[in-house]
């Protein structure tokens, strides 16, 4: 491969020299660049405004193996900021076009495109990457990836986290002139679920206001979206990704707005209200992406200490950033290790519940526990219909109910006396010979 003179000059200044700000264990060496270019596999989720920036930044920072996943196709309205796309690309998959264009412009980098939903990939797909970068505008998608990555966590028999099961994530997010970049080391720093409160709840208007007394263009759009669609297009499922559906909502909203003497319904406002998106600013994407790519470089090489753990950026008046070290939720339903208990491998579900009830650690917190494992309700105390269906499980062996995995797993315990879900990490004791 022919390389531009001085191509890696700046990167080498970071990787080949010692310094005061380097991370622990950093040893300057040429192998680090080799590692970035050949061994480290990075996944970029989302090839939109932030994704385009991330792909460019990562490729130019020396990452040589990048995968990108996105389910969207290019819309003409993307072209102002999603700079990897051209007018003749409209209608093509974002992931594919972005991958091709990066490979054209940055020699030696391999970008693999995945034109699909994130849920379509299996767990092993996500496991193969060393770092996952998120350039998403949806909390739902973040939450999904979070649950996948947290499910990778494993613990040593002594309860310590197995560090080799940590899949680092770097998340970027932008909304207008505001943005954030954060580093998530699941099990060590807070995951999305730990800090869900950081994300504002979606704005919802009362249905009766929408129906009776609309006062704003958004009210008119939401009325058509939530109520009129069901009346006029009976049986049709609304799809926010369908341009025809969106155009219909827009046209009907304009009619309704005229009726109530409201002005200001536009197509882009319609998209914004229905999809709950705020207009994107190219410079915000660029700044947030640069921070994210730098954090990925630090994770991969230890060339500097990593961010701890959340940076917010406000660009409305100058350039303001502030970095906060948020704390993990010790009882997080996604990333907490769970309270360890050991039971005999012949133990039934009923015996396991009795063990929990007699355990000093839970005694004051449990009265009538319901137990579930992954997606399966093993025993439900209520309602009666579920209690009846799950009662036969009480006599069955816990090991078999937990999929026969001798290394155990995490049970979710619900009880009226508990504030949230209690996670209990079950391990099965070996055969009799140990006693």
């Amino acid at each position, binding site marked *: 491969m022919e390389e531009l003179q001085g191509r890696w000059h700046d990167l080498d200044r970071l990787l080949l020299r010692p310094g005061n700000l380097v991370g622990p264990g950093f040893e300057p060496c040429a192998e680090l660049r080799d590692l970035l270019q050949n061994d480290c596999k990075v996944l970029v989720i989302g090839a939109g405004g932030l994704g385009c920036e991330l792909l460019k930044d990562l490729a130019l920072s020396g990452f040589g193996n990048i995968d990108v996943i996105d389910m969207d196709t290019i819309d003409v309205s993307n072209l102002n900021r999603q700079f990897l796309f051209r007018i003749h690309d409209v209608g093509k998959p974002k992931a594919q076009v972005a991958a091709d264009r990066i490979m054209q412009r940055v020699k030696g980098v391999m970008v693999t495109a995945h034109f699909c939903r994130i849920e379509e990939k299996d767990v092993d797909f996500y496991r193969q990457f060393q770092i996952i970068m998120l350039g998403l505008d949806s909390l739902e998608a973040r939450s999904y990836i979070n649950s996948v990555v947290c499910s990778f966590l494993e613990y040593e028999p002594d309860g310590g986290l197995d560090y080799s099961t940590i899949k680092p994530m770097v998340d970027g997010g932008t909304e207008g002139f505001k943005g954030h970049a954060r580093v998530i080391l699941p099990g060590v720093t807070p995951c999305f679920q730990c800090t*869900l409160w950081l994300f504002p*709840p979606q704005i919802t*208007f009362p249905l009766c206001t929408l129906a009776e007394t609309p006062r704003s263009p958004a009210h008119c759009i939401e009325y058509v979206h939530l109520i009129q669609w069901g009346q006029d297009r009976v049986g049709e499922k609304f799809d926010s990704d369908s341009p025809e559906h969106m155009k219909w909502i827009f046209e009907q909203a304009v009619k309704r707005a005229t009726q109530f003497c409201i002005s200001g319904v536009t197509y882009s406002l319609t998209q914004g209200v229905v999809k709950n998106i705020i207009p994107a600013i190219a410079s915000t994407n660029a700044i947030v992406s640069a921070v994210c790519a730098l954090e990925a470089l630090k994770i991969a090489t230890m060339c500097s200490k990593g961010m701890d753990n959340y940076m917010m950026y406000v660009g409305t008046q100058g350039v303001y950033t502030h970095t906060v070290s948020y704390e993990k939720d010790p009882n997080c339903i996604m990333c907490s290790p769970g309270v360890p208990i050991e039971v005999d491998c012949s133990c039934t579900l009923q015996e396991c519940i009795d063990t929990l009830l007699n355990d000093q650690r839970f005694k004051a917190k449990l009265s009538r526990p319901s137990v579930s494992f992954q997606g*399966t309700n093993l025993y439900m105390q209520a309602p009666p219909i579920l209690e009846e269906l799950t009662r036969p499980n009480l006599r069955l062996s816990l090991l078999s109910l937990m999929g026969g995995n001798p290394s155990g797993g995490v049970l979710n315990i619900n009880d009226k006396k508990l504030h949230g879900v209690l996670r209990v990490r079950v391990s099965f004791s070996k055969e009799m010979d140990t006693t």
Partner: protein
Amino acid sequence: MVLVSPLLLACIRAFLDWTQVDLIQRTTFFIMIKLFSVKQKQKEAAESGSGGPPIKKQSPGELRVQKDISELNLAKTTSIAFPHGKDNLLSFEITIQPDEGYYQGGTFVFSFQIPNLYPHEAPKVKCRTKVYHPNIDLDGNVCLNILREDWKPVLSINSIIYGLQYLFLDPNPDDPLNHEAAQVLRDHPWQFEANVRKSISGGYVGGHHFPRLI
């Protein structure tokens, strides 16, 4: 295999100095070591032939609704059904049979859809039974404040069920979705009562036919 000697040196140095390294940097360090042994790992994976069925991922909403359902305290006028089996709690049906008020004797079915981000987001509730009611339109949209603008994560499925039961005991003509029904309730409550009886007996009200519910 690219495990390099500088790194081993680094390991020793880092271990010697471990107390001065905070948790985050320590973790990142372990991640880097893992990166260096990527090639070996890939070899192992190729040999073992990974794959297998994908593990079903539970969303936060699923976990929380498990708690809500396991603590349901249903009145005798209310029942619950799980059309997709005992392990799919993300969609279920609540049936309410009011034993007093305008709607006494009727049977009303509501479908609940729990979003993956529940309780960060409210459940989606629709009335599956066509009903003449000021706060429920003929398509089954329900105007209940805690389903939309006043939803809070501390609320639960139980709170919504109470809210729905209350709608049948005390329909609110000031917050209408069914404009005509609200007007009648406001101006001529006795006429409203007669209309409700007629509708739940399977008759026509205001040009709309309603199913027989009693």
